[in-house]
């Protein structure tokens, strides 16, 4: 301690001198005149040059922190990008559906598919609209591309629809070009076929098939798919394979057509069928 005090005592004059210099400089920099502004500019340049020189020395801790921050930003941006892509695709789909909704003559209810089975022999979809949206059993389910299926069960806010990939759903169909009739049904093994078409009927690969006016479940003219294979099954009927317009793997939103076949027609057909039995 003594040594330190003695050392400081020897430096006393320099300490006082330095203090006076510092006070003088502080007083000088309190001024706001041209000279001081110029000196400030020079000081900023000098400090900037020095900092610039030091910046080439990598700071490992700073780099690590920067790296972490960049990674976090990257994750955030990736999430945002993903959300934007999703929003863009949703926007496209909804735009197409809106166009269809404006085009169609029927009243429709728009629903989102919230459940789907595609690997069974009786496949269904669950939709987030139900009786509260005036959805009833038997109403057709479609998209802007074509027929999806029909409602088979409803609750207040949900409904279940059989889709074309369901063995129990059979749709009366017509060839758009040649007006040949048939029944569209899924074979349960991966193919949708048009049945009951005689060997001599005019059906060609590429023909578009749509619902016919003979159907008591669907209004006429809803596109179903197009013919991919046309060959003879046996002496009487053709084997027609159909590719659906609707891609059941990717479909997300659907319309429920507020259409039910007329009661009088249904009653008549029911009576007639009973009599025939």
């Amino acid at each position, binding site marked *: 301690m003594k040594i330190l005090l003695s050392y400081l005592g020897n430096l006393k004059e320099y300490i*006082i001198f330095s203090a*006076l210099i510092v006070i003088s400089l502080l007083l000088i920099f309190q001024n706001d005149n041209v000279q001081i502004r110029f000196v400030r500019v020079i000081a900023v340049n000098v400090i900037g040059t020095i900092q610039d020189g030091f910046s080439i020395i990598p700071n490992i801790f700073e780099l690590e922190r920067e790296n972490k921050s960049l990674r976090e930003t990257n994750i955030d941006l990736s999430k945002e990008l993903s959300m934007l892509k999703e929003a863009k695709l949703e926007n496209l789909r909804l735009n197409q559906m809106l166009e269809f909704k404006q085009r169609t003559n029927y009243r429709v209810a728009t629903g989102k598919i919230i459940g789907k089975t595609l690997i069974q022999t009786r496949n269904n979809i669950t939709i987030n609209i139900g009786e509260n949206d005036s959805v009833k059993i038997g109403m057709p389910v479609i998209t802007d591309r074509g027929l999806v299926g029909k409602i088979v069960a409803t609750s207040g806010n949900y409904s279940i629809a059989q889709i074309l990939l369901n063995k129990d759903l059979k749709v009366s169909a017509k060839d758009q070009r040649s007006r040949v009739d048939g029944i569209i049904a899924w074979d349960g093994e991966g193919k949708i076929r048009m049945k009951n078409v005689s060997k001599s009927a005019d059906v060609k690969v590429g023909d578009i098939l749509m619902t016919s006016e003979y159907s008591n479940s669907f209004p006429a003219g809803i596109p179903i798919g197009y013919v991919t294979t046309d060959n003879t099954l046996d002496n009487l009927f053709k084997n027609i394979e159909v590719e659906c317009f609707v891609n059941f793997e990717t479909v997300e939103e659907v319309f429920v057509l507020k259409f039910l076949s007329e009661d009088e027609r249904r009653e008549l057909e029911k009576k007639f069928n009973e009599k025939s039995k």
Partner: protein
Amino acid sequence: MEYLKYAGILLGLIIIQKTAVSFIDVTEFKITPDLVIIGLVYIGVKRGKITGSIAGFASGLILDIFSFSFIGLMALAKTIAGFTSGFFNNEQKTERYLNSYIFVLLVSICSIINNTIYYTFYFQGTNLLFLDILIRYVLPTTVYTALFSVIPVIFARRRRFAR
């Protein structure tokens, strides 16, 4: 008591500097002698670095306040000049320094330091080059001040001879 004498000397010189000296300016750049630095060198040589620098700071600050501009600049220049003069404080040689023409040399050294600092700062932001500042202001002021520092030397020598 001695310090009061130094303070009185400096105050007297400051008053003369701010009142009468402007009447004896020379050259187109209105160069005047710096009487305060003469007194400051006297005090510095007599009392050392600490007294020199404090006297320099105080006298410089008073001059700054009187000039109403650039507060602190003269204080800075005079502090450094006073501290420099303190380097020549030496018990055996002090009287010799003060009573001979060595004093003129010491005044010149301290004056050139004082003027260089002062004018270099003062002319920042103008188009004047350092060489121009040196030739137009620093050196003439130093020479003019050195000439005036001859006067106390003459008085001191006469007094010595009179004894």
